């Protein structure tokens, strides 16, 4: 493949060169086991400690012991949710939302089958939760609330502090899936009412196969993977040292670049989004533009289908995602867009472009140049083309 314009960073990211440099020695010379009694392993143990500190610093955790390394975001989500439920066996109610990643959604559905009462909160047309509905859902029987920090498809950011406070006032535990938020927006967990928080390395320029779970000091915890005493007995399995070191390095880098994410990257995203809205008639942004990750835009083009857009973009080396039925792996459009009530005419034609600090203005300009032509071409093929014209005419008569 020739030159690639990678705008699918909510799916996964490139490993930062500095991160690769940091992890390589642990794949080569420094292969010791951090639990060993010899100096050769002990050195490696120090590297793990340092990485834990780097993750804690990015999150603003009180102490590094609040960080547990896992294999991925999904494992962090499962661990936190099951831990909170198992710690309070008398409570049988779990509250989450309809727009969660499958890592939480599918677990919620499973818990429902196992006899839990599970509330899946809806969202409005902009993807925002109704806080009164959330409040009304909380009962004495509620063990845990899990609401994502930011949505992977639309980038919409949820009022985590408000939700956390609502839970805390009622003695309910609170988990947030922050896989998309970490590294993109500043976090300060020591001042946040959050009991558990999940993150995943491959979304912030660390490799795939490493995640972390923040467990607030004092929050109840139950082990998910039983076995050895690694991670202070909270997650068994020999530490994936190279990946852990990589995650630490990625977090340190993210802390350094967090301003850039919210100025430069955001500027590129805004330029891209505004230019596309202006160039393509009948296009809309999915999700609340005011509470959103700085790198994400989810834009829908009426009367065209997302997979077709992606394949034509692929011809130009542009990588993106869509929430259309053909790309969602099912036969229906994305559960997030459906929960928002996005009309089918738009839902099937959604395109998610997610940037990173490695994107350039030239790349953004390239997409602005190619995408409108692609949409026009597909609309020429579409039988609903005329429908659009008729609607416009009909309105003129009124």
């Amino acid at each position: 493949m020739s030159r690639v314009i990678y705008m699918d960073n909510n799916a996964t990211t490139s490993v930062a060169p500095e991160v690769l440099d940091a992890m390589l020695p642990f794949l080569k010379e420094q292969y010791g086991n951090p639990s060993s009694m010899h100096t050769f392993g002990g050195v490696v143990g120090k590297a793990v400690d340092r990485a834990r500190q780097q993750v804690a610093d990015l999150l603003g955790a009180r102490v590094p012991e609040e960080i547990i390394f896992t294999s991925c975001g999904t494992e962090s989500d499962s661990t936190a949710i099951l831990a909170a439920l198992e710690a309070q066996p008398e409570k049988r109610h779990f509250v989450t939302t309809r727009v969660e990643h499958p890592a939480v959604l599918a677990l919620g559905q499973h818990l429902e089958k196992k006899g839990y009462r599970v509330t899946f909160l809806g969202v409005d047309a902009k993807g925002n939760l109704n806080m009164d509905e959330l409040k009304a859902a909380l009962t004495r029987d509620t063990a845990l609330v899990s609401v994502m920090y930011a949505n992977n498809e639309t980038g919409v950011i949820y009022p985590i502090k408000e939700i956390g406070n609502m839970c805390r006032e009622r003695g309910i535990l609170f988990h947030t899936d922050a896989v998309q938020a970490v590294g993109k927006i500043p976090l300060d967990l020591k001042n946040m009412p959050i009991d558990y928080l999940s993150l995943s390395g491959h979304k912030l320029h660390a490799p795939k196969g490493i995640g972390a779970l923040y467990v607030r000091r004092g929050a109840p915890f139950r082990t998910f993977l039983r076995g050895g005493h690694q991670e202070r007995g909270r997650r068994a399995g020999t530490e994936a040292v190279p990946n852990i070191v990589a995650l630490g390095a990625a977090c340190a880098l993210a802390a350094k670049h967090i301003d850039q994410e919210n100025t430069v990257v955001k500027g590129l995203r805004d330029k891209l989004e505004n230019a596309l809205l202006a160039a393509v008639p009948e296009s809309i942004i999915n999700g609340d533009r005011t509470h959103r990750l700085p790198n994400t835009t989810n834009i829908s083009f009426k009367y065209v289908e997302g997979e077709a857009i992606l394949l034509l973009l692929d011809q130009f080396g542009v990588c993106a995602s869509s929430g259309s039925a053909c790309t969602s792996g099912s036969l229906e459009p994305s559960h997030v867009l459906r929960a928002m009530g996005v009309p089918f005419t738009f839902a099937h034609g959604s395109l998610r472009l997610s940037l990173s600090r490695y994107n350039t203005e030239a790349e953004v300009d390239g997409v602005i140049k190619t995408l409108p032509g692609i949409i026009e071409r597909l609309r020429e093929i579409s039988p609903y083309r005329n429908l659009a014209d008729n609607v416009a005419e009909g309105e003129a008569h009124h």
Partner: protein
Amino acid sequence: MWDYTDKVREYFLNPKNVGALEGANAIGEVGSLACGDALKLFLKIENDRIVDASFQTFGCASAIASSSILTELIKGKTLDEALAVSNKDIAAALGGLPKEKMHCSVMGQEALEAAIRNYRGEPAMPHSHEGRVVCRCFGITDQQIIKAVKENNLTSVEEITNFTKAGGGCADCLEDIGEILRATLAGETGAPQKPLIPDMRPKTVPPQNAPLSNVQRMQRVMSVLDEIIRPRLNQDGGDIELIDIDGKKVLVALRGMCTSCPSSRLTIEGFVQQTLRDQVDPDLTVQEVTS
């Protein structure tokens, strides 16, 4: 990423016979915006022979490629020859389709059948009258399922979903599909009879909780009519016109096939009103204006 053949890519990137056809005397429409793919097939027929064909498609790459190659396959054929073109022929002409995409070839075959019926003055979609809707999400009838099973030697529910989409939404109908599959494979004639009023409601998003303003309600009614209700009625050769919205009362008129359809009251109450209630406001009532 789908594993498409070079032929699919070629017919997607450079589709042949795109657009409305001047002088077309037969049109076949299948699918809908709600389902995520739709095909409008134009034929020009002279002396019972297809002399020209073109298409318009809303859908993914394989839907566009299937439509385009279909137009090439049928040009020059007599109507009876064209009717012998099966969805398998369409897929084969493309060098095969990923199994999850076989429904695109089925859509092509159905549009062809609908166009020829249109030319012969027959109702557009025979099966939705003759059959019972099994899958509400995609409006698939038992007859469509049985046809797909027989023509493609399907042996599992998963394959049926790949070919017809039935079962690919909420999955409520999977058991029912399994029963139809079992009966068809066992060679039992006729589908298992469940005398139900066909429930044509598509899968719906629950209404929003916030009260709607009048303008919002009106906009939503109009978009639900355009996006869900009209395409579905069009499939049966009918149409609907919005006459007025008076508070929570929606006045409509049925057009086309629907006017002569004895079950138009069912259409209004069972389908139009229910869909609008599901999608917009549970307090809406729909009334038919006859003029």
